[in-house]
């Protein structure tokens, strides 16, 4: 692996950067496809831009995908912790009471 890496470096850092980006993107894509639902990149972009203070602020494609992933984790954490709370209270339905109990710690953890 190391030998291949140094060989590629000889081609120029630009090519290596592109190759690295492609590999990273493939790994990321594989992880993203694991579960069905998720936040679309365009939605995440609009959500972020809604709150930027500067007009010139932009977001890279990779950063958008990662943010989408982070948001997904946030939602799933909220959902799963609420479920755990409901299970602890021996309830079959997750209601606002259960969410309210787990929300403070969730927000602190993020």
């Amino acid at each position, binding site marked *: *692996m*190391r030998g291949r*890496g140094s060989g590629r470096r000889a081609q120029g850092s630009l090519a290596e950067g592109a190759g*690295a980006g492609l*590999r*990273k993107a493939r*790994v*990321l894509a594989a*992880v993203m496809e*694991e579960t069905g*639902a*998720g*936040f*679309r990149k365009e*939605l995440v972009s609009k*959500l*972020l*831009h*809604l*709150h*930027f*203070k*500067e007009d*010139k*602020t*932009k*977001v*890279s494609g*990779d*950063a958008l995908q*990662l*943010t989408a*992933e*982070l*948001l*997904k*984790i*946030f*939602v*799933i*954490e*909220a*959902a*799963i*912790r*609420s*479920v*755990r709370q*409901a299970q602890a209270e021996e309830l*079959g*339905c*997750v*209601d*606002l009471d*259960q*969410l309210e109990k787990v*929300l403070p710690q969730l*927000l602190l*953890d*993020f």
Partner: protein
Amino acid sequence: MMEEKEGAEEQQRFSYRQRLKAAVHYTVGCLCEEVASDKEVQFSKQTIAAISEVTFRQCENFARDLEMFARHAKRSTINTEDVKLLARRSNSLNTMSETGHRLQCVRMASLWHPQF
């Protein structure tokens, strides 16, 4: 006349915001449904709406922080290093096993690993 125009603009901003909230609500609903069927429980509609509201507000925190991180690094384009900073508290996060793996990937995805 000016007041009418301002009123219309205000209305447009409000509708745009509402549309974004609705889009978030839809995705949150889908994710909760996946969790619900996996854990064999049900979420009340109000719970899904509440998670959706919190998520929408969390986006504001994320956006502000990301913009500040990039600006601190003297960039106007937010990159993966900034997102990684956003997830910094996740080190102490006692995540459920389902999300622990995903968080690990978020942290790793923003690093440069030659073997990838």
